């Protein structure tokens, strides 16, 4: 009898107590989706190997970054310049201060000097360059908008192609992180810049993830702050939102440079222990904030890797190879457990491993 009672008790405990410690399906799914991005990225080729040096001989690429004062685009172009030197083609960066009139000058320069391809990187908007894009493509110059749109977003009209980034997936991962860390009860403040093309893709990823995994227990609020107004709009609006809704437990600035203005808002309202910040881009100063515990998580992109991937995609176009639909640029999640790998102070493109360098060398059939 006694044994029977013990057995029964044990079964009941397993049924009730055991389940109380089990994860909700939402949290389990979220953690499953995050898992591949917590391992050091592996190199995956975007297409078959080709003899880059041979087919790129005598060819030239002009790169127009959204702004030369933007370290993100600047460092991608440093990488592309290094690739150009290794492979043996001409790469020129058109330095500018973010004015569309300067982008126009760059387009005209490329047309006049007969470049083979114009790369519009990270927000140099083809929509405000429509006449120049048309003029370039009509004389056979390829115009590529890179790191501008998500996989599912249509290419801007007139361009020859895009090198997309999986912004939708990045948005999903941000939501997954909040879901996993809050046990499926996320109340998130999402900060966006609607005028930036990739925002729509990221926001859709966030919304879909919350909607699919925890439609009843998660909620979110969106604050829009245009890029030029980050310094004046983000801090006061985050402060007010935190005061208006004390149950907010996550802030998701979709571009991590916004964090500079989110952290003081959290500090001033005294919510450092309650409210966590999860973000995207992997900008070094934000990785520093992850090291200091001010930001909880930052999905990083290795800018040197991105430079290689964009160069790969564009070389394929110039070599007459099939267009790359997915440049295989990996994300890597940094949190306090691995942020130190980025360096002290954190450096660009550090902490991701070097698998891609050898990978691209082999892909391009380079001797060294």
């Amino acid at each position, binding site marked *: 009898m006694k044994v029977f009672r013990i057995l029964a008790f044990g079964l009941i405990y397993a049924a009730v107590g055991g389940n109380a410690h089990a994860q909700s399906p939402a949290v389990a799914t979220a953690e499953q989706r995050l898992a591949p991005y917590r391992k050091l990225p592996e190199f995956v080729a975007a297409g078959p190997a080709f003899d880059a040096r041979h087919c790129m001989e005598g060819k030239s690429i002009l790169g127009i970054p959204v702004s030369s004062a933007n370290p993100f685009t600047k460092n991608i172009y440093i990488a592309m310049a290094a690739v150009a030197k290794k492979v043996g083609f001409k790469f020129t960066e058109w330095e500018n201060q973010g004015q569309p009139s300067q982008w126009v000058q760059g387009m005209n320069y490329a047309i006049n000097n007969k470049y083979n391809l114009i790369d519009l990187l990270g927000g140099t908007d083809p929509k405000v360059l429509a006449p120049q894009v048309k003029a370039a493509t009509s004389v056979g110059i390829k115009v590529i908008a890179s790191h501008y749109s998500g996989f599912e977003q249509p290419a801007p009209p007139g361009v020859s192609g895009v090198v997309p980034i999986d912004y939708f997936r990045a948005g999903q991962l941000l939501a997954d992180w909040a879901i996993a860390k809050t046990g499926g009860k996320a109340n998130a403040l999402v900060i966006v810049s609607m005028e930036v093309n990739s925002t729509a893709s990221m926001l859709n990823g966030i919304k879909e993830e919350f909607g699919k995994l925890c439609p009843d227990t998660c909620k979110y609020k969106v604050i829009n702050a245009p890029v030029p107004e980050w310094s004046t709009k983000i801090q006061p609006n985050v402060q007010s939102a935190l005061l208006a809704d004390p149950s907010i437990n996550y802030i998701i600035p979709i571009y991590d440079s916004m964090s500079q203005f989110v952290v003081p808002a959290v*500090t001033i309202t005294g919510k450092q222990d309650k409210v966590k910040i999860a973000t995207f881009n992997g900008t070094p100063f934000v990785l520093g904030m992850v090291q200091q515990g001010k930001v909880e998580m930052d999905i990083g992109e290795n800018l040197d890797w991105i430079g290689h991937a964009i160069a790969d995609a564009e070389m394929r176009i110039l070599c007459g190879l099939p267009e790359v639909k997915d440049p295989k640029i990996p994300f890597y999640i940094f949190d306090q457990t691995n942020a130190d790998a980025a360096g002290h102070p954190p450096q660009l493109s550090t902490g991701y491993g070097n698998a891609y360098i050898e990978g691209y060398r082999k892909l391009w059939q380079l001797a060294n």
Partner: protein
Amino acid sequence: MPVRATRSSEPLRKALVEWAERLGLFIAWALTIAIFGLIAPEAFFTWANFSTILGSQAVLVVLTLGLLVPLTAGDYDLSMASVLTLSSMIIAVLNVNHQIPIGIAVGVAIAVGVLTGFLNGFFILYFRIHSLIVTLGIGTFLHGITLWISDSMTISGISAALVNAVIVWRFLGVPLEFYYAMAVCVALWYVFSYTAMGRRVLFVGRGREVARLSGIHVDRVRWGALITSGFLSSLAGVLYAGTTGAADPSSGLTYLLPAFAAAFLGSTSIEPGRFNPWGATVAVYFLVTGITGLSILGVRTFVQDLFYGGALVVAVALSQIVRGREERPQ
């Protein structure tokens, strides 16, 4: 000659109008608090909300107060936001990249601000160039230097000692940066209202030639005003670095227009017709209270710009109407 029936109430009416004008901004501020408090009392009428409003605007208050000095002397200083940005970047570069103690980094940043004021004064006064042009040029030049020393990057990890002293430590629940801004406001008010030096700045601003003929060293006064604005801009930069614990090469530049807006809005109140520190301070907090209320209500961010610009124009226009009625012959 017709007898005016209301003759005895004229001085009373005049006094009422004068006090309404002086306190106009206070009244507007109180109305704003009342309206938002009625609509969202649980979120708006909390000490947490007010202490956040008071504690988070010190950078703009100090910058605006610094702007008042050259404006009173009749000069424009468009380099202030660039000095703010450069100062905060100098602190970041020295303290984070070169491990220099925060006290020395702050000292260097302030020295750079004072030097900029000196240079502004030199070019304006020696070469007799309009202050708008010189300060605009020097401000743009300083922005280039900021981009250079920072390599266009944001630098984070500034010493916790500075961040603590600015936004973490509190007195009566309000971060200390509010009290620093108040100290500057009180100091400026005292100098303008009770010292001969302050009066000289006012005379120079009101009429340069008359001041010169009265024996005031106009150039010295203007130079001093520009050095003061350089000093206060770099002080604002120190507070800015302490607010975010980081420095970036561009975001501080956006403070220039709000500082001008608050300075002009402040001149409609407390001491109407004159740039004054209390008016400017109340102007900053009135505008921020309005914006905080709007964002607590969840209103979209573009409405905040409508409020900011609209409030400025309406307030200055109202002030002009009141002044116009005063000046029209009876």
